[in-house]
């Protein structure tokens, strides 16, 4: 039995400790928002947060993250999530949508460490997440939008952030 802490909930799972976190999230915990696309850490679709840092869940075994704080797209909350959601809806980013959870989790980690990224910062942070549909221009705009929203409203949303 391995204990996993996902989206503020504790789960005990009885699987091979070398199983990638991705498949445990998807199949054991039913959190299918995190996506499989390459399985070899090349595309970023499976990005989740471990203790707030973006991590590729397709090559991360569950024994390595047991006891750590895991956040998936389903559990992404707070002012960054809200401002990203606004940006994503405002720019109508998604096409097929399959890579978007990975894009959003990566963008959230970027804004957490750098609330006002410029284009180069966005390139550096986001270049590991592929989008075959080509939503890159909208992703860029959505991150800028989220960044501007959060800077305007960070005072009121700061409370939320504190709670988190």
């Amino acid at each position, binding site marked *: 039995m391995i204990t996993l802490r996902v989206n503020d909930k504790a789960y005990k799972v009885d*699987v091979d400790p070398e199983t990638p976190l991705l498949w445990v999230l998807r199949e054991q915990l039913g959190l299918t928002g995190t996506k499989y696309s390459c399985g070899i850490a090349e595309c970023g679709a499976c990005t989740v947060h471990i203790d707030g840092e973006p991590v590729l869940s397709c090559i991360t075994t569950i024994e390595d993250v047991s006891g750590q704080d895991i956040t998936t797209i389903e559990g992404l909350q707070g002012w960054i999530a809200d401002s990203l*959601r606004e940006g994503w809806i405002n720019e109508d980013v998604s096409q*097929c949508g399959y890579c978007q959870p990975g894009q959003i989790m990566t963008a959230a980690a970027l804004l957490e460490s750098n609330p006002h990224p410029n284009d180069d910062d966005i390139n550096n942070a986001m270049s590991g997440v592929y989008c075959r549909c080509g939503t890159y221009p909208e992703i860029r705009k959505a991150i800028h939008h989220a960044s501007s929203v959060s800077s305007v409203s960070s005072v009121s949303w700061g409370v939320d952030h504190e709670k988190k």
Partner: protein
Amino acid sequence: MKKNKVDKGRRRFLKFGVMGSAGLVMAVYFGTGGEKTKKAFEIWNKDSSILAPNAWISIDSTGIVTVRVNHSELGQGITTALPMIIAEELEADWSRIRFEIAPAEAVYKNPAFNSQLTAASTSVKTSWDILRKAGAAVREMLIAAAASTWNVNVSECRAEKGAVIHTTSGQRLEFGKLAGRASRLPVPKKVVLKNPDEFKIIGQPLKRLDSSSKFNGSAVFGIDVKLPGLLTATVIHPPVFNARVKLFDSDTIKNMKGIRHVLEIDNGIAVVADSFWQAKNGADTLKIEWTHNEIKDLDSEKLLKRWGELSNKEGKTIHEQGNPKEALANSSKEIKAVYELPYQAHATAEPMNCTAYIHKGICDVWAPTQNQDAAQEMAARITGLKYENINIHTPFVGGGFGRRIAVDYVAEAVQIAKMIKAPVKVIWTREEDMTNDFYRPANTNVIKAGLNEQGFPVTWSHRIVGPDHMAHMLPRLLPSFLPYWIPRSLRDLVSGIANRVLPGVIPGKKISEGASHIPYAIENINVDYVEDDPGIPLGFWRSVAFSHNTFVVESFIDEIAAAAEKDPFKLRLKLLEGKPRMQNVLKLAAEKTGWTNENTNGLSRGIAFLDFHGTILCFIAEVTVSPKGHVKVQRVICAVDCGIVINPQIVKSQISGGIVFGLTATLKSSITVRKGRIVESNFDDFPLLRIDEMPVVDVHMVKSAQPPTGIGESAVPLIAPAVTNAVFAATGKRIRRIPIDNQTLIMR
């Protein structure tokens, strides 16, 4: 919902004819319309308070309007665009519109193919008239219901934003309140449609209806389908195409944790387990011996050599006008070039997968597919069940690009579900996905032009050497185009014959699309085709034959301009004389760019033009080439005339999406074959374009009152020639083989 398709009247029919020694030659005529379709009450589950008088619209008592979308949502935005068309004529409140993907049903067939198929950028084009009329009819019913409620004349009432208003008194009743009463009224046969200048919804950049579920992870893709007792399978396909299983030793993995079954299926070996990771580990461990076949020595480089030799042969004439040979002999300058295009993979973000469950004589299939009819036909063939007992559910699809027109993954899921008598989800690994695609065909093109004394082309000849995708796809898909009433035995017989006969008959026509009829006024033209099919499975790849032919045509027009020392924009403009709609698009792109073919600030410009099934586009790419030969596309200016624009934001997304798709093929990745195997297997050796490589995209849409045309594929063919023409402007080097090899561009 009970389905009964067997006794439906059909106008389309099969025509057989025996012709000479060729044996049975078959011609299939697809009629459209005339089919008896299900009545509205059979299509929608509804009670008496719901108004659902046609296959497309259902309005409940709370005023929620549900629109049935008969196409798969692949990301192209169809679950927004089609509801917008209905909402416009219905005078609906956009905030109350919902959508659902239609089940497989005769009424939901795409009229372009008479098959329920999301393909060839036909969704908006074919739905435009049908959905406008459907929306207008329901609007009239709601107005009539309101008029009878108020006991006033219908002419005194109008619909607006989800309600009917009595113009003189100002009384107002919402659609939801009128739905029950309206449902008892007759459906009007004739309706008046709005004038485009009255449109309030069409033309607006309304937000996509599928956005929010795709933000929070709740959108259900095929790979996300959940069922009680669901097992997961992964399939190992032959490493060399068409090889068969010779030997496999299931004992070695049977005792591994979670492994339930190891099965030989038509397409390879399936390992079924409690979870995907267990199935994958089992598959990785399993030892399989495969038979060999004639493809085992196949090699991309050898193929290119062979096609080079074959290009000296006269081909099958696809299109001829004037007297090209004589014109060439009389021309004052002759130019010739050879272009080589590789195989390409679809590499959809979501790997192939499908879920099937056969229970109590019903087969449920959750298929992320572009082809509901083929999925249903495939399940019927495997299970022996009638169509009425096969339910095709279409979840969100993580990218299609034509890959999911084939239904091989559906066949696997249904076959395994039948063998193990349990619900099963088949998930391919990325490696299986990359190496078992239906690829965009590779080909070699020899192209010649003769110029007159003024430097204008008077003759043009284009020879394509290689395989034709249609020879692979039509035999596969044919059974799904056949009328429902054709019994199984005859259906299988027809497919068997088609499989043998069609590949010998059809090659040439489809592979030359985009080459056979170029928009330019050139008097003498010859396009011919030399068939050589090495047997690698082929399919439809976003924009299909245009994806290679436009590269050849638009590059060579540029070569002509260079040879004649003419401006490539002005040359195209001249060759499009008498085609004002096309010239207009060309001029718009040039005007928005400030076209000049001279380098400015290290930026070089390349132009390309295309008429893609009535969608007219011009791209101007601005690139830089570093001394080390690295090509960076800085900006792409696109002018497009796609008729009436339903949603400009979606048009922009499809253009920039097509650019990204095409740029991956121009700058980064292709499929190569060595020793009969596909070399590339994942995104490490088939990398996609990244966000930092993305150019700025400026899209300019021509304002039009013409009916809408398709947009989903149209950008793909243009980006390669626009970029390579710009590279020529920058370096003087002509790229005739893509992806671009940076080595060839190093400045010396």
